[in-house]
Structure formats: structure tokens, C-alpha cells
């Protein structure tokens, strides 16, 4: 047993606070928008130039001029605003965004993140991820605990090119939750997914970690 994508997104949503401006990455992080607690005001930023992202449009109401950073059609809200990419990254790099939730390929025990390329194989690019991890106040990574091959992804040191060094505050995987604190404190397991044992998560983790389950 482990958490599903939806359960991981729901756990990540517990990091949201009232009044936060938040940037959500592509994939599982996008699902976090479905778990914003009722009554909580959270404003979603899209780095291609929008603050206050609304839901997906109804069929037939798509607007080619209105997309999110994942190139999906979206809608605006009464409070939305549009701006250039330079203004967008002034928000991000300037520390005006409270929380960024991103996907990951590898995370190290000191909070390094790799999520943008596999040399010789996958050439996609970092997009806005390097700016987000460098500039946003709190960085949460959501990813599977191991690769499809079973190889661990939470490592003593990343083997893939880094997106940022000492940038991850919290890691949520399908097996549990780790406090990383950008490497300022020891890596600590704080929660286990339903039905996951300490033995299992230890066997599937290369990084050394302490245990402080709530």
C-alpha cells in the first residue's frame, strides 16, 4: 500500500495557508488546486504571466490566449491579473510567492533537487523550476519514492544535474513525508503513508534520515 497521486496532492494541500500566493508545478502539484480547504483564500500564480488562475473552461469556451504554464486552457477570476514574463519572475525571484509545489526526479538529504534533465536521454529543460526553487520562500517537492526500476530517488547526493542546491523544505512521496529544511537540519521522516512500514521506507531510501513520526 502507498498513497495515490490524489492522496499525495491532498497531503501537499496541508501546506497551504490562508492568503498565500502559490505556484503549482506540472503533474501531481497541479492536482493540489482540487484540495484547497473550503473557506481558505489561496491565489495561484502561473509563471507564463497570470495571477489568480481559475478552473478549466467549459467545453467550447477555451481561449487560445489563456493558458497555464502546462499549456492547458484555463479561465480567469474576478481578481485575476495578467503581466509579462519579466514581471512574473520578479514575483518569483523577488520572494513574493509564499509556496512552490514541484515534481522531482531526485532529492538529496541536504535538500538538493534534480528535475530537469537526464543527460543523453531526456532533454526538456528547466522551464521556471530553477527560478522557483531559488526565489520562493518555501519549496515542497511531490514525487514517487522510487523509480519504475525500483531504484531510490531520495539519495545521499543527486546523480542527475541539479535544479537547485539546498532548496527543498519538504518532500512528499507515495510512501511518506520528510522534513528536509534545506539541509539545515537532519533529514527527518515525519509521516508514513497508509500501510507503509518503517522497514519498507528504509529499504527504499538511500539517504540517511531520522524518524519523528507524529
Amino acid at each position, binding site marked *: 500500500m502507498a498513497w495515490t497521486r490524489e492522496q499525495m496532492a491532498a497531503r501537499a494541500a496541508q501546506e497551504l495557508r490562508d492568503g498565500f500566493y502559490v505556484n503549482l508545478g506540472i503533474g501531481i502539484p497541479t492536482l493540489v488546486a482540487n484540495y484547497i480547504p473550503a473557506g481558505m483564500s489561496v491565489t495561484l500564480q502561473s509563471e*507564463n504571466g497570470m495571477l489568480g488562475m481559475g478552473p478549466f473552461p467549459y467545453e467550447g469556451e*477555451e481561449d487560445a490566449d489563456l493558458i497555464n504554464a502546462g499549456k492547458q486552457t484555463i479561465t480567469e477570476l474576478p481578481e485575476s491579473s495578467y503581466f509579462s514574463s519579466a514581471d512574473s519572475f520578479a514575483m518569483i525571484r523577488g520572494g513574493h510567492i509564499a509556496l512552490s509545489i514541484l515534481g522531482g526526479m531526485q532529492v538529496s538529504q541536504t535538500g538538493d533537487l534534480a528535475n530537469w534533465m537526464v543527460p543523453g536521454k531526456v532533454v526538456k529543460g528547466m522551464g521556471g523550476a530553477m527560478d522557483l526553487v531559488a526565489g520562493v520562500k518555501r519549496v515542497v517537492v511531490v514525487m514517487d519514492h522510487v523509480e519504475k526500476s525500483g531504484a531510490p530517488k531520495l539519495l545521499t547526493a543527486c546523480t542527475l544535474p541539479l535544479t*537547485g542546491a539546498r532548496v527543498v523544505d519538504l518532500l512528499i512521496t507515495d510512501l511518506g513525508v520528510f522534513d528536509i529544511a534545506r539541509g539545515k537540519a537532519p533529514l527527518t521522516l515525519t509521516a508514513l503513508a497508509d500501510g507503509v512500514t518503517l522497514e519498507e521506507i528504509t529499504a527504499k531510501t538511500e539517504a540517511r534520515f531520522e524518524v519523528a513520526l507524529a
Partner: protein
Amino acid sequence: MADKTQKSAVDALAGRLFDGMTIMAGGFGLCGIPENLIAAIRESGTKGLTVISNNCGIDGFGLGVLLESGQIRKMISSYVGENKLFEQLYLSGDLELEFNPQGTLAERIRAGGAGIPAFFTKTGVGTLVAEGKEVREFDGELYVMERGLTADLAIVKAWKGDAAGNLIYRKTARNFNPMMATAGKVTVAEVEQLVPVGSLDKDNIHTPGIFVDSIVAGAKYEKRIERVTTRPREEKASA
């Protein structure tokens, strides 16, 4: 007032294209791309291009058509994951590629257009992006030096514009277009609506005409959507 209007995208680029030149192209994905000017560059056959653009279109549309025709020698981009041909050309060594973090790319262009040769940013410190670049400490934190970026030609797309070159963009189609308009030695803009001078709201002009050398009304707009994503309509409650 000089009338900057040109009859067609081909006319607007006449005498402005040469082999080996550097071109900035606005847009994010397929949103806000200068479709008509890209088609005119395709038609011109100009080659050996260095293209600065956040993405490189998709296979068969946007800047992707210039990849197919072999006119691009080098790309400076932040993300090319939507384009299979791009990955193939790069991995086989037929295409040069410089990845820039998206915010660094935007700021390099903004700086270039504003006459700022370099700046320092936290983005990329400790990664491949910082290799070979000056890293300096400010107030206890490390920053990497990035250079301002300009181009021989910038092609941008706006929603509305006038003969003076004033531009207004629409929604998220703005993206990189305003900075690129400032950073081309020559800037050519295409618009969906070319409107009479005096009809744009002067308080809401995004790109003032000084940055634009030529303007053309796009002959046609396909405005493709990369990922149509919708939600189901709620069932109407029966009365």
C-alpha cells in the same frame, strides 16, 4: 508621425533577414507567437539562425516549422519538451542548444533591451547553469552573473496595435513579447487588429511605439491550443 505599417509579413521583413542572424521570437508554447512572421521567415529560406524563444513550437507548428526546414542552427530556450524533432536534432548533434532558466531568460532580454549588460541572480547557483560564470556573494548569499541579451531582429505578436507601433497584448499571450520588443536591433510586430492611431487607450499601452520598427496586421491566425483542457458542465437543475 511615421507610419510603420507594412502590407504583409513578407514586406515587413524585406531586407531585414540574413544568414547567421539572431532572432528573438515572442510566445509561450503556442500562445502569443508571431505566426505570420514565422511563416515569412520559413518562406525566405534564411538559414543558420540563432533563435531566442522560451520554447520551440511543436512538431509542424510555430517555430517547429523552422526546425523542420533546417533553418535553425542554435536555440536559446528554457523548455523544449513539447517537440520530438528538437530532441532528435539535439541528441544527434545537428542543433546547438543553450538552456536558460525561464526567469533568467526573461530578465536577460529585459536587461538587454534596457541597456544593462549584466546582472546577478540567485537562480542556477550550484547547477550546470552557473558553470563558467562569475559567482559573487551579496549580503551572505551567492549570485551568478548573467548577461543581457539582444538580437538582430525581434518578432513579436500583439492583440491590437496602431501605425505608430503602440501595442496591447491579450491575457497570457503577453508573456515574452514586451521584453523582446525592446531588445531587437529591429523589432517587427504583427497584430490581430490594426486600429486607427488615437483609438488605443494611452494609459494601457503595453509596448510604446518607440520599440517597434514595423507593424503588420496578420493575414490569418490559427491560434492553435496545445492542450485543450475542460471541465464538465454542471447538470442544469430542472425546474
